[in-house]
Every structure is written in C-alpha cells, then in structure tokens.
C-alpha cells in the first residue's frame, strides 16, 4: 500500500475503493430497476431511524458488541452504507455533517471488530477469519481434489452461480449482499505441505420467507462453496464482494467443497440436481416478478432494504416492515423515472457518498 494511502482518513479510503470497484464493474444493466429510482422513497426516513438507533445503542453498555449482532454481515453493511449516507443528508430533522461523519466512522469501527483484514479490501482481501481459524477450517474439510475431476468442478461452480442467480431474484442487483458474502483469500497449508488460497462463498440467506412467503416450500436455507486455489493465482476480492482474478478459476482450482443446508454434495449428479432445483426456483421468482407492477417491484425492493435492517428494529421492539410513510410515497409520488443516461456518474456519486458534503444525487 502506498504511503500516501496509509495516511488517508477512512472516509477518503472508502470513497477511493468504491470508485475502483465501480470502475471494475463497468456499465451495468440494473435489474429489475435502478436503485436510484427506489432510494428517494425511503432513504431519508431510513437514515434518520438508523441514525437515532445507533445514537441510542452507542450510549448502552458494550455498544459495538450489540451492533455486531444487529448487522447482517460486513459486506452488506458496506453495501447499505452508500444509500444510508445519502439518506443522512436528506433526513429530517436534519443531521449535520459532523454527526454524519460520526455515524460513518462508528460503522467503520464496528466493521473493524467484525473483520480480521482491511475493512475496505484495499489489499484485495476480504478477511473475516483469523489465520488460525482459516487453517483449522481448511484442515477440517473433506476436500474434493480437482486433479481429475474437472467436470465435477464445473458442476460445483455452476451450482454456486445458480445460487447467485437465486440471490439476485430474491434481493435484486442493488443489495444482493443481503444474502451472501465472499471472504478470503486466506493463505493456508495443505496436508501435503503445499500452500493454497482459501476462498469461501457463503450464501447464508437463500430462504427469506419474511420477504418472500412463497419461499416456504424451498428446501434449502443456506449453501456454502469453499475453494482452494493454486497459491500463484492472482486473486482479489473487492469491497463489493466481487472476485477479480487473472486466468480462469477452474484451472487454478486445487480443491472444492460444496454444502447445502450444512450437508456436503460430492458428486456431479448431486451438484447438477442442486443447480436444477435452484434454477427452477429462480424461474418461479422471475414469473412472480413478471406479474408484478412497477410499484409493487419498488415496494419489494424497499422491503428487502428493511429486511436487511430488521434486527435493528426488532432489537427496539418494532416491526421490521417499511413504515406507512415510506409506502404511501409510492402512491403519492408515482414512479420516479431516471434520466436516459441511467443515473449519476461516479464523480457525482463520490460526492453523494461523502458524508462531509451536502450533495444528494438528482437534487441540483
């Protein structure tokens, strides 16, 4: 890491890595609708609520311990923070720049306690486990070694990609981290003394029945993929939980382990059957979405946001569901259409995601 970067404050570091991650993602096709067309309905109300709750928790005994339990996972916390910052600026009664900076820094402190590496993934790692925990986990796993099992490996990756499809159909593109996190790469040593990189893709919430009651019949609540890569693999994970690597992953994979509902899947047939089951559910989700009006999709998007913060509200004895005020705005305001250019540029977003400025996208 460059010396200059070491002395940057955390907000500048955060904005810098967000810019890099946006650039690597490139132009996207927001599905089913752009987050920018949803955020105005809820972000000010949500931000005021979460800010007030954080303030109250910060005065309690062991506040960071409480918060670690309330945030779903580090990746989703980072993802939700962007809209929260914009919401803090629009909140009423107003929240000053000083208070916004306090809020963001407090969240960073909580992330520091939840993660074992750089919270902004500046070194290309997203580490949640200690070195010893990762090594212990690697030792415990009954790995499928990929020397002569490339087809099995392909099927396992396909099952993982199918799970990602389900995640998108449940939480949409904006906040897919609500249901999964990729962490690693962890440097581990194998039983034959060879070194490897361990990456864990944890799809920890693929059956959100509170959000989608129809998921009640879906048989899996979680799926986890663990992969060991050749230590020379150029492999990085960014702040958006995107894996960026040079070369293809399959050929650099040494070992794999896939489990559904904590039970291992070790055959090509098993992995293919799981993919089929997942994709059938994805199709059902898509069919359901096709029948929904745009207003209903906006509502569902907002529900997913409130679902992600549900533990905050449940902790205070409140209903997790979006408040009436937010839902009524959909009727009152109608559908917010974005400019044909598809939303703000990174330069505009950078100012918007900076809690020190007053910039709110779309408000000139």
């Amino acid at each position: 890491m460059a010396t200059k970067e070491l002395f940057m404050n955390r907000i500048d570091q955060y904005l810098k890595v967000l810019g890099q991650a946006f650039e690597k993602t490139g132009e996207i096709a927001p599905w089913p609708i752009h987050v920018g067309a949803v955020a105005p309905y809820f972000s000010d109300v949500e931000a005021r609520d979460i800010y007030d709750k954080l303030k109250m928790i910060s005065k309690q005994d062991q506040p960071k311990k409480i918060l670690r339990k309330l945030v779903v996972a580090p990746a989703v916390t980072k993802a939700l923070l962007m809209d929260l910052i914009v919401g803090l600026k629009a909140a009423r009664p107003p929240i000053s720049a000083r208070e916004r900076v306090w809020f963001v820094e407090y969240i960073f402190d909580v992330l520091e306690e939840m993660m074992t590496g750089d919270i902004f993934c500046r070194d290309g790692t997203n580490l949640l486990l200690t070195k010893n925990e990762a090594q212990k986990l690697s030792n415990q796993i009954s790995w499928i070694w990929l020397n002569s099992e490339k087809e099995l490996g392909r099927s396992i990756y396909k099952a993982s990609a199918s799970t990602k499809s389900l995640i998108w159909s449940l939480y949409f593109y904006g906040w897919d981290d609500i249901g999964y996190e990729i962490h690693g790469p962890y440097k581990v040593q194998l039983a034959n003394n060879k070194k490897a990189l361990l990456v864990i893709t944890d799809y920890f919430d693929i059956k959100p029945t509170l959000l989608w009651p129809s998921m009640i019949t879906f048989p899996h609540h979680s799926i986890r993929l663990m992969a060991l890569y050749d230590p020379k693999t150029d492999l990085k994970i960014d702040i958006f939980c995107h894996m960026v690597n040079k070369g293809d992953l399959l050929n650099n994979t040494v070992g794999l382990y896939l489990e559904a509902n904590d039970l291992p899947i070790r055959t090509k047939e098993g992995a293919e059957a799981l993919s089929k089951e997942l994709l059938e559910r994805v199709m059902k989700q898509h069919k359901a979405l096709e029948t929904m009006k745009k207003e209903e999709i906006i509502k569902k998007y907002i529900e997913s946001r409130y679902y992600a913060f549900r533990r905050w509200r449940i902790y205070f004895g409140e209903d997790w569901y979006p408040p009436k005020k937010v839902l009524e705005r959909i009727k009152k305001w109608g559908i917010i259409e974005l400019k044909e250019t598809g939303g703000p540029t990174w330069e505009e977003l950078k100012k918007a995601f900076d809690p020190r400025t007053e910039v709110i996208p779309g408000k000139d």
Partner: protein
Amino acid sequence: MKVLVKGISASIGKARGKARIIQPGRGQKLKPGEILVARITDASMFVDIIGNARAIITDIGGQSSHPAIVSRELGIPCVVATNKATKVIKTGMEIIVDGDKGVVYESD
C-alpha cells in the same frame, strides 16, 4: 481474420463456435457449444443459458461484472465492454473468441 469487435479480456482462452444473440426475458435457449452474445449477462439470465456457452461476449460490463466472474468460474473465454457486439455479430455467425486479447474474429 476479420476483427469483429474488441473489448476487455475478462476470462482467458480461445473458443470457436456459432454465435447466438440472447436478449433477456425472451425465453431463448442456447445450444451446447454456442457462443453467448448479449448486451450483458446477469444473474437474472439463467445459468442454464450461460452453462451451455462455449464463450461469452457482452456489450457492456467490466472485469468484475457478472459475465466475467461466471466465465472464469466455468473456465470459458469472455470478452466484455465491446460496446457493439450485439449489433455487429449475428446469430448463426461462425466466430472465434480470443479471451486473452479481448478480441472477437469472424471465422474463415
């Protein structure tokens, strides 16, 4: 060989096959071994489409976009951010994808 489009190399390797333009939400199928050409793939585009692809080419996206990540996992070449692949390439066209260089050629 005639260069059809250039973009960002998102997954290495070379592949030759028939192109198929896929548009989301149209229930199109990809035959095994065909090359998927789309504006972008995303997780809403079923993996059984992507799973059959010999290579992926997209108009937009970057190195950490959905097609890039999936193609590296599946070990197939991928070129993203070509700007115009879905306009230049036609379904049924025999093409060569050079994932190392990020170039797509018309096959001789």
